[in-house]
């Protein structure tokens, strides 16, 4: 039996009894980052693969959602910073070993690329907005240039949007000190989840039935991929060291079990999978708008549960106060 107890107070609510430094603000940012990445990727693919006819919303209107969603996420991320006046310090340094530093610079590149992507389809997607931009000579020239280079812009959006989607996962997986996050699968999982929520958003917002049907099929494939990735993540934790196995316990009977299995796996993955399968096979179309809503809820739940369970996973565990249970434990034999 080993127990380690504080003699003097460490008294820091961010650390004891479990690490709890990041709350919904960061989960919201991770979710919005993924959603933005997915929106930019689908908007670019619709142009690159010449799907304007079948997917007019994705091809011409979706791009405008990206900077709006990303700005919401960055606002909540800013709310999380404790030393807000010094936020500019992200841009006076580049730390090659810090995914957070990479992310700060990726965000700086994503915004102007997103603007180019919007301008390249603005006349088709948002005529009223385009006419306002066209009133300025420089605006007209910019839109003309972007329209001429629409394909090149679409192709150059993809790597940056993928980087945005993936980095939010790598950001967490780079923390070796937090075993639950410490899996290489996390980056790809967050990217696929981000694309899945973006596909769900298209199904919700697009008007044409053909486009909704196309993105329902895309979402189904992404959900299947996500289920596979989640399984890989759990297997990798289960086959890891003691710290990884302990970390896994938090969603296998521990405090985040309900959140993980009910909100993320059931509501976010399995139920939409069933609804979308029924819809595509033509068996039941009455729940057609429910699936994308659930996918979006599940996408947020994934970020929140991974953030919470990951923070609390640790290499060190101390008892924060005496209790009679500790005395009882001293009678237990070592396993």
């Amino acid at each position, binding site marked *: 039996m080993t127990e380690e107890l504080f*003699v003097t107070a460490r008294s820091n609510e961010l650390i004891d009894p479990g690490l709890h430094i990041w709350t919904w603000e960061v989960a919201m940012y991770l979710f919005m980052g993924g959603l933005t990445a997915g929106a930019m990727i689908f908007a670019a693919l619709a142009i690159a693969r010449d799907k304007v006819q079948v997917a007019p919303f994705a091809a011409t209107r979706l791009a405008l959602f990206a900077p709006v969603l990303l700005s919401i996420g960055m606002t909540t991320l800013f709310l999380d910073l404790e030393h807000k006046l010094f936020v500019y310090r992200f841009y006076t340094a580049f730390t090659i070993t*810090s995914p957070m530093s990479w992310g700060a610079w990726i965000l700086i590149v994503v915004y102007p690329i997103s603007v180019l992507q919007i301008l390249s389809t603005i006349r088709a997607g948002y005529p009223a907005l385009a006419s306002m931009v066209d009133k300025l000579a420089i605006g007209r020239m910019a839109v003309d240039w972007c329209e001429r280079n629409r394909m090149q812009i679409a192709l150059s959006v993809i790597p940056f949007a993928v980087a945005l989607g993936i980095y939010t996962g790598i950001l967490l997986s780079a923390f070796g*000190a937090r075993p639950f996050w410490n899996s290489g699968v996390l980056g790809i999982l967050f990217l696929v989840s981000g694309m899945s929520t973006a596909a769900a958003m298209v199904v919700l917002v697009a008007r044409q039935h053909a486009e909704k049907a196309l993105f329902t099929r895309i979402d189904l494939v992404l959900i299947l991929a996500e289920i596979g990735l989640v399984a890989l993540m759990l297997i990798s934790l289960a086959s890891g060291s003691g710290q990884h196995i302990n970390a896994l316990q938090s969603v296998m009977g521990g405090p985040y079990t309900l959140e993980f299995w009910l909100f993320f796996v059931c509501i976010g993955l399995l139920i939409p999978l069933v609804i979308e399968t029924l819809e595509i096979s033509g068996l039941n179309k009455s729940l057609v708008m429910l699936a994308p809503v659930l996918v979006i809820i599940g996408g947020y739940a994934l970020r929140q549960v991974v953030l919470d369970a990951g923070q609390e996973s640790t290499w060190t565990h101390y008892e924060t106060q005496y209790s009679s249970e500790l005395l009882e434990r001293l009678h237990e034999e070592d396993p």
Partner: protein
Amino acid sequence: MVIDTRTCIGCGDCVVACKTENNVPEGLNRDWVVEATRGTYPDLKTEFRSERCNHCSNPTCVTLCPTGASHLWKDTNIVLVEPEKCTGCKACIAACPYDARLVMHPDGYIDKCTFCHHRVEQGLDPACVSTCPTGCMHFGSLDDPHSKVSQLLKTRDHKVLKPETGNEPNVYYLT
């Protein structure tokens, strides 16, 4: 830093000395004492450990800090935070496998054990070491083979906390 767990009595003077020397904000601590009990009753063994930042040779709090606020002081392994560069993003708190990077200063930046580098610069020991009433704490350079700390590690059984983290901690415990 080398701490003799056989001499430490867990009095907590190191904690008080640190708070006084460094004006640590009320309610927060840069160091703490742990009582570790092993065995099965009645065959129990207790060890007191004064713990703080391990000032690792491979400090993940430095490599993961996005702004360079977390840094190594003057080519030593003393890990410091520059408040003017710290955004309060808390990445370093998550990056520390020892959960030692923990004091959030009320002004919003990360605060932590500095090994009292302002005293070390003057050739003095950190406040916790110089205050310890049992003399169980020792401070010095492990690069110097004749230093007290080097000699202690040569002659006594010792350990570091969780060496498997790969962070190469530099607070040693004599056992």
